[in-house]
Each structure stands twice: as structure tokens, then as C-alpha cells.
């Protein structure tokens, strides 16, 4: 491991930390425009993080140490996830560790801790949110894995870096399987990131909320970390989606000029992705929580179909 | 004059004419005259084919050899007798208020068009057109099954349409696979579905594809034959449709579907070594026979019971053709003929019986011999014939099939015998009290046409006692074609 590589990796992480709240802000802004509201400033998430970090933490009486550690663990998991998803380059020091199954595991770890912490205090809202989060996760993870297997079949490897390299450097060809996987991935991302058809990120007190219900007891820097982690998760998913389905333009070197050149492209792709996300969120209504299994079932089905189509149409040629 | 064109032309033209003029008073007579014309043309065609050998018509579109001309003459004959039978029968139905005049028109035109589709299915040389004609035969009969518009008849017709639709779709997939296999040998010409071309290259067809194709074709056309477990539509359609329709469905449509399977079997046998197609047919045949035999005893409706009897006999015939070889094929063809004649005779008798007593429930039909001795004896003799009693022709064919099975497939003999025994007990036990017993029914407004019943039965009897050498030669020729 050379020092340049390490620096490049650190740079990528720093960029993730910086861009993630910005992406959330951009999505919120787009949503506001689409709904004919006056948009909050683009930097609103930063203001909020700043405000929350400066506030004192109020802990519930029954809170255990798990409740206090959970935000750090979740935040750590998300930073790790952002570090191993190739955003700027496929040849970073963390790349060998960047196995897709491990990535799903990292997300799963974060989910378990946030759900446990939500139940820790013992409020009804917290445990309700925690249980729903586990339900969604239990259905979303297989679908996500199927999506990843489809891409892994194409590149004959489960390493994210290898997948992205294969996909980015192949000649142009239409992969029906990737189309299926892409749609399935979109479905899963919406569920995982508590976006509209499954959860509503804008509301704070509603009986059907999931993510907000879990973090209701948090305050101060803990809440800041969790909010930041949520932004990072959205960022990680967006980058994963971009890397798997629109990988063009990700260099595989670790030289700084190449890295720097990749930034504008990444920002551009994220901006497009964010506005698309806002559009989809606006045109859809939130569905009943009991419809979520069917929704995620569809995602799973699509991913499996992608896998099958891949095996049938694209292997023996 | 080309008899072939006449044979196809009569039903087509009269069917179209009856669509327009079907409500006129002379329409039933036109129906009979057209059927007579079809029959005469097919009889003359038969003489021509037996004398001069196979021939084509319309280029290579149609092909007539001694195998299908046999089915053609059988179809035309039963069509003729059915039209004679249906003339007073349908008038009685009209008097009873079960049918209106427009529905009678529908019946007559559809009957002729149905004859047309079956005759084209039998004579076409193109296996794709065979499929099209088979599907068209379903379409023409589906409205006939629901002719009474009662809930039960609609249900029966719906089931018939959906199940046969599904079945026929499987057959189309089989046909596509067959075309695929043929195209590899014959090239991308339009000839790759022509049977005469296929049979020349049958040894070169890819066995894997042919095996799969034959499975699909057997299941698909088998649905129409009434092979278990896809036979569910058959009893319903027979029981709820008008009796002449039951007679032609049982006596003819099942034969035509089986004919389609036979044509495909010849190709499959050529392509696949080891008797794959035959074994498959034997298995299906036995299973059908056993299923039908055990369902027979549970029937309450007389037409349903005889529909199950048709399934049973189709099972026997499928088994016979599955065994293959000159004797078994001969017996299969003979049995098919005997079954067609006997079963349609039974349905004619049953039609009159139900009309007289006003019910199809067997426990309510009693003492037919007192209401009308002719019908009573007709039903009794028909039942004895279909149960394989000597000296009727069914006995001869069943006997041949049984002895052949004992010789080459002894394991099947106990199954065959048990099933036949069960069927015998079930049918005879139910028909006997219907014929002999007490009753108080009134006579019908229109005298029933009894002649067809006895014409059929006397032919069956004659063949049981003595098969003319002309017929033997012809059957042997047809059996030889089946390999």
C-alpha cells in the first residue's frame, strides 16, 4: 500500500462526508420545486448538522450504553460503506476488501444497531419503527443480493471494484439482465433509504413512519450523527447504483489528477440521480406499510428474472 | 368431377347457406341433403383411393391416402345419420320450448361448418393447417355445446373452450417444434410442415426435438381426444350439449384428434428409436381407460355416463395404437370405427329416451321398452355392443387388442381386463332398469328417426360377424401406413 493510494482513499472518504449532506439537500430542494414550494437552501443539511452538534444530548432515563454507542457504530458503518463503493477510482487500497456481500453485511450491521437502539428506550414508537425496519430489511436484502449476483455473474466476481471495472470497460452492449437488475435496485434503494413509496422522509410524526420513528428519542450530536449517516447511506446507494449501472468515467488509477477529473462527472451524475429520485418521490404516493412486502417482493422477482435472463440469453454466446 | 372438392364443398357451401337461410322450412332438408352429398362424394373418393392409391389435391395442400380416407368416409357417414336423426329431434326440442328458431339456424350452419373443419383436418397435408382446422372445430362446436343457454350448458361450453384452448396451445407449441426439427432437414421452404415431405425424411429428424415435440402434441391433441387427466371438459360438453352434438363430438371429433396424434406418431417413431412415442401412448391410454372405468360407476346423468364410456374407448384405442404393429393398428382402426358407429347410435337412442322422459337423470328414466319398444331395444342393443358383447364388432376389435396385449405386453392385460370389467358392471347395471321398468311418459309430437340407430347397429353387428374382404384389405393398407 503506497502513501498516495492511502491519501486517495482518504480523499474519497472526505468527499463522501462532504457530498452526502449536499445530495440530501439537493433532493429536498428538487422536491420542493416539484411541489411548488419555496425550496430550503441547498446547504440546509449542513446548517442542521451544525446546530445539532452544538446542542446538548438529552438521554432517556432507561437508555443503556447501547443507545449511546449506536449512532457511532451506524455512522462508522456508513463511512466504511462509502469508502468501499468505488466512486472516484476502482483501484483504491480498500478495493480488495470491497466485496459486495460484505457491503450488504455492513448495511445489515448498521440496521441491526439502529433497530436495537430504537427498542432500547422502550417507547412504543421506537420499537414500532425498529420492527418495521427489520421487516423491510428482511425483504430488501435478498433482493439487493440478487441484483448484485446478476452483476457479479457478468463480471465473474463479487468484488465491487472488479464488477465496476468490467462493466465500465466492456464494449457497448444491451444487457436485458442489467435492465431488470437496475429496476430492482431502484426499488430496493427506495425502501432502504426510507423514501416515499415505503416511508416518508419529510414527516416527523405519523403513525406509518419507519426511519423517523426509530430516531425519535435521539438528540444533539447523536441525532446529528444519525442524520449524517442517513445521508451517507443515500450517497452510498446512489454511488453503488451509478457504479453498477452507469459506470462510465470511473478511472481505475489512483493518481490525483485522474481522481480530480472524476469529481465533476460524479457530481453531475449524482445531481441527475437526485433529481430523478425527487421526481419519482413526487409522483408516487406513500403506500400502506402492509403493501411493502409485495413491493419488495416485486423487486426480488425482478432481480431473479434478471439473473435468469442473464443465464438464458447472455451466457452461451 | 373431383370428388374431393365436392366432399369439402358440400359442407362449406351448405354451412354458409344455412347461416343465411337457416330459418326456412326447408333448412333441415338442406342439412340432410348436404350431408348426403358429402357422404356420397366421400364414398366415391374412397373407391377412387382404394383403387388407384394416394393422391394430392390443390397442389400439395391436401393429401388423401387409405388411412385418412377411412376416417373421411366414417366422418361423412356419421354426419349423414346425425343430420337425419337431428331433424325430428330438434323439432321436438323446439316444441318443448328449449330452443328457438334462430338457435336452430345456428345449430344447422355450425353443424355443417364443423363437418367442414373436420374433413379439412383429416385431409390436409400441412400439419400447421391441421392445427388450424382442429382449433376451428373447437370454435364451431363451442357455441353448439351452449345452445340451450342454461347455466350448466354455459359452464360446460366455457370449460370446453378453455381446456381445449389450453390443450390446443400445447399442440401448437409441439407443431412449432416439429417445424423447427423439419426445417433443419428440409430447409427453409414452405414444405417443412407438409406431411408427405416429412415422412420421407423422418429418420433424419433430430430425436431430442422430436421427443419434446411429440410430448406437446400428444398432450395437446390428447386433450381433445379426452385422454386423462385432461378429459374434464368431455363429460360436461357431452351432457349439456344437444344430443346430436354429443353424438358427433363422441363419434367424430375424438377420432379426428386421435388421427392427428397418429400422423405425428408416424413421424416421431421414425425419428426416435426405442418406441418412445408408442410407450407414451400406451401409458396415457391405460391411465385414461382406468380413470374412465372407475368414474363410470359414479355417474347419474345418462349422457355423462356414455361420455365417460367414450373416454374409456379412446383409452383402449390409444393403447392399441401405442402397441403398434400391423395387428394392433388394424384392431385400433376397427375399434375406432365400431366405437364411432355404436356410440353415435347410443346417443341417438339416448336422445329420444331423454326427450320422451324429459330428464337425463338415469334414476328417473324407467321402462323405455314400454314407452317405445324400438328405442328401448335400440338402447339395450347399443349398450351391449359398446360393452363388447359378441357378436357385435366391438367384441372383435377388443378381442384382437386383448390378445395382442397378452402376447407382447402381458403386464397390461390384468389392467385392461379389470377396467373393462368395471366398465361393464357400471354401464349394464344402470341401463338395464332404464330399459325394463315401470313408467308413465307421454308420446312425442314428432315421430323420432329410429333408422340411424339401427343402421349403425346393424353395421356393427355385421362387422362382428363378417368383415368384407374389401374392408379388410383397406384396413390392412391403412394399418400398414401407421407402421
Amino acid at each position, binding site marked *: 500500500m503506497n502513501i498516495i493510494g492511502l491519501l486517495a482513499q482518504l480523499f474519497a472518504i472526505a468527499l463522501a462526508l462532504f457530498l452526502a449532506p449536499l445530495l440530501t439537500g439537493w433532493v429536498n430542494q428538487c422536491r420542493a420545486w416539484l411541489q411548488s414550494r419555496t425550496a430550503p437552501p441547498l446547504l440546509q443539511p449542513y446548517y442542521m448538522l451544525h446546530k445539532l452538534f452544538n446542542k446538548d444530548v438529552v438521554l432517556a432515563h432507561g437508555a443503556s450504553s447501547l443507545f449511546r454507542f449506536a449512532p457511532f457504530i451506524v455512522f462508522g458503518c456508513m463511512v466504511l460503506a462509502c469508502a468501499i463503493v468505488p466512486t472516484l477510482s476502482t483501484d483504491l487500497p480498500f478495493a480488495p476488501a470491497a466485496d459486495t456481500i460484505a457491503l450488504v453485511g455492513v448495511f445489515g450491521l448498521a440496521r441491526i444497531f439502529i433497530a436495537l437502539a430504537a427498542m432500547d428506550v422502550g417507547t412504543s414508537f421506537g420499537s414500532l419503527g425498529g420492527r418495521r425496519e427489520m421487516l423491510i430489511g428482511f425483504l430488501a436484502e435478498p433482493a439487493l443480493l440478487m441484483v448484485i449476483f446478476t452483476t457479479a455473474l457478468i463480471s465473474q466476481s463479487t468484488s465491487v471494484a472488479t464488477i465496476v471495472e468490467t462493466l465500465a470497460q466492456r464494449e457497448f452492449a444491451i444487457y436485458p439482465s442489467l435492465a431488470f437488475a437496475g429496476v430492482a435496485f431502484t426499488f430496493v434503494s427506495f425502501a432502504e433509504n426510507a423514501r416515499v413509496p415505503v416511508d416518508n422522509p419529510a414527516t416527523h410524526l405519523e403513525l406509518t413512519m419507519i426511519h423517523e420513528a426509530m430516531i425519535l428519542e435521539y438528540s444533539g450530536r447523536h441525532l446529528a450523527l444519525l442524520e449524517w449517516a442517513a445521508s451517507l447511506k443515500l450517497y452510498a446507494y446512489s454511488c453503488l447504483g451509478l457504479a453498477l449501472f452507469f459506470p462510465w468515467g470511473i478511472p481505475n488509477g489512483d493518481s490525483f489528477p485522474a481522481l480530480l477529473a472524476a469529481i465533476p462527472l460524479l457530481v453531475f451524475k449524482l445531481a441527475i440521480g437526485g433529481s430523478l429520485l425527487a421526481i419519482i418521490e413526487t409522483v408516487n404516493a406513500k403506500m400502506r406499510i402492509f403493501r411493502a412486502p*409485495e413491493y419488495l417482493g416485486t423487486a426480488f422477482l425482478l432481480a431473479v428474472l434478471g439473473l435468469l435472463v442473464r443465464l438464458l440469453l447472455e451466457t452461451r454466446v | 368431377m373431383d370428388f374431393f372438392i365436392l366432399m369439402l364443398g358440400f359442407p362449406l357451401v351448405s354451412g354458409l347457406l344455412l347461416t343465411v337461410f337457416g330459418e326456412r322450412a326447408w333448412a333441415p332438408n338442406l342439412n340432410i341433403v348436404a350431408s348426403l352429398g358429402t357422404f356420397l362424394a366421400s364414398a366415391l373418393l374412397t373407391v377412387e383411393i382404394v383403387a388407384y392409391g394416394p393422391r394430392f389435391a390443390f397442389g400439395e395442400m391436401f393429401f388423401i391416402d387409405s388411412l385418412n380416407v377411412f376416417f373421411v368416409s366414417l366422418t361423412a357417414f356419421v354426419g349423414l345419420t346425425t343430420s337425419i336423426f337431428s331433424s325430428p329431434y330438434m323439432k321436438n326440442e323446439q316444441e318443448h320450448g328449449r330452443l328457438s328458431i334462430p338457435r336452430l339456424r345456428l345449430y344447422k350452419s355450425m353443424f355443417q361448418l364443423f363437418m367442414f373443419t373436420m374433413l379439412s383436418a383429416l385431409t390436409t397435408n400441412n400439419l400447421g393447417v391441421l392445427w388450424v382446422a382442429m382449433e376451428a372445430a373447437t370454435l364451431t362446436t363451442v357455441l353448439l355445446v351452449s345452445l340451450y343457454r342454461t347455466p350448466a350448458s354455459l359452464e360446460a361450453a366455457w370449460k370446453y373452450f378453455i381446456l381445449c384452448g389450453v390443450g390446443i396451445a400445447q399442440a401448437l407449441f409441439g407443431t*412449432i417444434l416439429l417445424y423447427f426439427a423439419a426445417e433443419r432437414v428440409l430447409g427453409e421452404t414452405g414444405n417443412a410442415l407438409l406431411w408427405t415431405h416429412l415422412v420421407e425424411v423422418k429418420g433424419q429428424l433430430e430425436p431430442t426435438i422430436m421427443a419434446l415435440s411429440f410430448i406437446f402434441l400428444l398432450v395437446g391433441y390428447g386433450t381433445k381426444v379426452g385422454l386423462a387427466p385432461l378429459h374434464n371438459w368431455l363429460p360436461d360438453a357431452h351432457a349439456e350439449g344437444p344430443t346430436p352434438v354429443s353424438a358427433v363430438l363422441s363419434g367424430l371429433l375424438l377420432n379426428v384428434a386421435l388421427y392427428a396424434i397418429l400422423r405425428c406418431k408416424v413421424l416421431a417413431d421414425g425419428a426416435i428409436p426405442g418406441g418412445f412415442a408408442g410407450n407414451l401412448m400406451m401409458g396415457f391410454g391405460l391411465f385414461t381407460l382406468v380413470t374412465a372405468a372407475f368414474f363410470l360407476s359414479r355417474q347419474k346423468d345418462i349422457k355423462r355416463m356414455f361420455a365417460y364410456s367414450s373416454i374409456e374407448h379412446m383409452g383402449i384405442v390409444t393403447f392399441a395404437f401405442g402397441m403398434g404393429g400391423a395387428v394392433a393398428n388394424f384392431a385400433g382402426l376397427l375399434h375406432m370405427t365400431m366405437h364411432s358407429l355404436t356410440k353415435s347410435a347410443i346417443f341417438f337412442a339416448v336422445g329420444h329416451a331423454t326427450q320422451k322422459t324429459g330428464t337425463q337423470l338415469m334414476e328417473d328414466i324407467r321402462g323405455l321398452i314400454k314407452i317405445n319398444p324400438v328405442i328401448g331395444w335400440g338402447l339395450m342393443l347399443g349398450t351391449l355392443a359398446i360393452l363388447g358383447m359378441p357378436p357385435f364388432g366391438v367384441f372383435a376389435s377388443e378381442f384382437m387388442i386383448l390378445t395382442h396385449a397378452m402376447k407382447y405386453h402381458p403386464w397390461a392385460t390384468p389392467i385392461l381386463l379389470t377396467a373393462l370389467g368395471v366398465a361393464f358392471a357400471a354401464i349394464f347395471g344402470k341401463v338395464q332398469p332404464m330399459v325394463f321398468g315401470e313408467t308413465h311418459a307421454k308420446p312425442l309430437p314428432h315421430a323420432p328417426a329410429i333408422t340411424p340407430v339401427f343402421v349403425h347397429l346393424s353395421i356393427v353387428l355385421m362387422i362382428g360377424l363378417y368383415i368384407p374382404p374389401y374392408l379388410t384389405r383397406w384396413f390392412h393398407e391403412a394399418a400398414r401406413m401407421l407402421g
Partner: protein
Amino acid sequence: MSAVPFSAQIINLFASVILLLAFAMLGQRRVMPLINLFAYQGLVLAMSTAVVAFTTHQHHLYWSAGLTLLLKALLLPWILHRLVRRLNVKWDVESLIAIPTTMLVGVGLVIVAFNVALPISQLSNTITRGTLGIALATVMLAFLMMITRTKAIPQVVGFLAMENGLFLAATSATYGMPMVVELGIALDVLVGAIILGVFFFQIREQFDSLDIRNMEKLKDS
């Protein structure tokens, strides 16, 4: 991978869309969207056939494509739309079938179909050989739809979708059947649909609904 010509990729893409639409139909509860999905399937089928015709210079396939477009994408959906409006069954919603279970069974069928079709498509040398599995899968999914639905119109849509699958099979294995056969099949489908239309009215007259569950009287005691 580069051996796949571009047109084959397009055809594969279309075939995948047809499969996707077959699944969407399997999962659709309402009548009108179901008919629309069927129309889209016909449209995609016609486009895919046209691409095959263009690539392989099989001129009769243009006719098939046109026939498909006319019949399956326009005429039949139009007839069905009219029927639904005339019979006023627009709000007929399937309630009792477990869609997710059906979907899982459907995935199983797709796997079976792909395996059955694999040895055959390996023998084929057409540009479309890969799609034979998809065609068989579409047939099987339509079949599944027919047996799981309780309303008459979805059953019929299933029946017609099965025909779509068979058509795709014919195109993918052999570049279509001879023209006379294809015309005959199209005619049969059309007449069948019309007869079914007549049938719907008869059923409604008798049962006051198009629910097939009313029609379970005929059984062997």
C-alpha cells in the same frame, strides 16, 4: 460477449420486456390495466418480429409483424375494452388470489421453461434462439394466469397471452411458421375472441356476473 450482434441484443431486450409484461399481467388485479398490458405485449411482440424481419430479410415476417400489431395490439384490446365497458365489469377486481405466491410459482415455471428450452435452442442457428426459453416461459405464465384467475376476462386475456408466447416461440425457433398457417392461426384467434365475446354476454345473462366461481356445478358427484 462481443459475438452477439446488435440486432440480437435488441431482440433479446424485447423478449425480456415480453417476459416482464407477462409477469406484470400475472400480478395485475384490475381488468383495464390488464388489457393494456396485453396490448403492450402485442406491441413489443410486433416490434421484435419486425426487427427479426429486418435483420434476417425474411419478408413474410413483416406481414406477421403487421398482423400481430393489428390484431394483438389494436383490435383485440379494443374489443376487450369495449366488452368491459359494455358489460360494466370495469371494477371487477380479483380478490382471493395470493399474488405473491402466484409470482413465486411463476418464477419456478420460468426456470423450468428455460431448462426445457435450453437443449433446443442450442440446436438452433437462428439469431433469435435465446428467446425460445422466454417464449415457453411466457406460454407457461399465461397458462398459470388462466388457472389462477376466477374472472372470465382475465382468463381470456391469459388465453390470448398464451398465443403471444406461441407466436414468439415460432419466430424465435424458426423465423415464423409458413404464411398460410400463420394466417389460419390469426383467424382462429380472432374468431375465438369474438365467440368469447358472445359468450360473456350469455354468461352474464345467466349468472349476473363474470365470476367463474359461479360455474362449479358440473362435477362428478
